Each structure stands twice: as C-alpha cells, then as structure tokens.
C-alpha cells in the first residue's frame, strides 16, 4: 500500500506509455482526490510543467494525465546534492460511470494540475421533500 505523503515524486515503475522521453524515466505525480456534492476534484503536483505541457486523455473509463518536463540541467551535471531526477509525469485513473466525462475540465498553475470531474445528475445526492399528508 502506498503511504507516501510528500512533495517527493515517485518514480513510475510500470507504464503503458510507448513513447520514451530524453531520460526514459517517468514519475508518478502525488495527487489528492476530493469529493464534494457535485464533483470529484483531482489535484496533482507536477512541478516544472506548464499548462501547455499537460496532456489529458479520457478513454473507456480511464483518465490519463501526462505532464511534459523540459530538461533543466544538463545530463552531465555533477550534483553536490541530488534528491530528485527529472522526467515526465504520468498517471492513470479508473473513472466510474458516475462521472460525466463530457464535462471534465482542467486548469494548471504553478506546477499544479487541477481536474474537475463533475458527477452525472443521478449520482448527486438529492433531497426529497416530505410533504405532510
């Protein structure tokens, strides 16, 4: 079970991606998934990724997010302290039918991607008024 809670990236061991980037290494972004009455909100840490570098796909119930990271240091850099590597971010999620895929929206700022996954009408909690007979 994954219990890491941090700003650190986790290196992706397993990926369905067939393209390889300059480093061939992928990182799994840390995410928060929150639920409100109307939607699921998915927030992913993807430092170094600009809005134009984000690619989001939704196919057959699977949502994938891909953040392209441009190299910021040369491959040959001799690090005095080297706590993280550089590579693209990639992660997939299974999305249930209670999400209205047509209305998924995304925004990105300061290296954070936020996805809004609205629930279909029938999945929202509904108050049923009780009339006195």
């Amino acid at each position, binding site marked *: 079970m994954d219990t890491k809670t941090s700003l*650190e990236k986790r290196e992706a061991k397993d990926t369905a991606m067939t393209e390889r980037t300059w480093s061939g290494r992928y990182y799994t972004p840390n995410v928060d998934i929150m639920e409100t009455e109307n939607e699921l909100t998915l927030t992913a840490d993807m430092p170094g*990724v600009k809005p134009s570098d984000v690619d989001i796909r939704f196919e057959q119930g699977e949502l994938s997010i891909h953040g392209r990271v441009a190299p910021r240091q040369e491959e040959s850099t001799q690090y005095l302290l080297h*706590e993280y590597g550089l590579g693209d971010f990639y992660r997939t999620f299974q999305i249930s039918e209670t999400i209205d895929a047509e209305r998924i929206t995304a925004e990105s700022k*300061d290296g954070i991607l936020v996805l809004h996954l609205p629930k279909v009408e029938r999945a929202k909690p509904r108050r049923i008024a009780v009339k006195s007979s």
Partner: protein
Amino acid sequence: MFGNGYTMGRLRGDLDRMFQHYFGDLERWGGTDTGGMPAVNLWENESTLQAEAEVPGFRMEDLDLQVIGNDLLLKGARKADERAGVSYHRQERGVGEFERVIRLPTQVDAAKVQATLRDGILTITLPKAEAARPRKIEVKHAGK
C-alpha cells in the same frame, strides 16, 4: 514505516539538517529520503552554486529563503484545502510547514543571491564569494 516518520532534527550526511513542524494528523510532510521535505538539487558552476527545489503551488510569499554564513535556509508552508463539505479519497500531497538547512560547500556572497519561482520550481543562484572563486595565477618567467 513510510509516511509515519515524525522524526525531529534528523541528521542527513554533512549537508543539511532538517526541522519539521507538525500541526495535527492531516497537516504533515511524510515521505522517506528527505523526511518529506521538498527535494533539493544542488550543483556547482565555476562562479556560482545553483540550487533548485520543487515547490508546486507555492508563491514567493509562502517561502522564506535566507543565506546565513555557509547555510542555505529554506522555509515554507502550504495549506490543505479547507473547504467545507469535502471528503478525501486520497491525500498524497504534503501540507504543513517545512524548514530545511543546507550546508553549502563553498562560501557565497549572501548579498548577491538571486531566486526565481516558476511553474513550481524555485531556482536559486548563489554567487561564490571572491575568496572561493578559482583564480588564475600567472606564471612569469624568472628573469636572468
């Protein structure tokens, strides 16, 4: 156990000391190698030290950066989403305060340190102090 290391003042090599502040269960930096702190890369050019930290979602006002002697001090705080009526299915992103102290291997000119923040990446340029820069020494021919 990963994610539950509430260690205080853990030493890590000669390069840095870390302090962590906790404000209850939900607001903590978990993690392993760096104790959950933002990860930092540090490298050296001829005339500068370069440091870089991944701090997604932070703005300049959330960060406090200082050079004290040979130490680089980086402090910051990130809040959890505090909207009402929210339940979490997953919470992996760290929240809370952090403080890192990184011992620099060479002397730097604190007055000339520059930092930029973009797309969640903090880039710090630390010009080496004059005394620490490589200096060419001209070899003159001995006269006859």
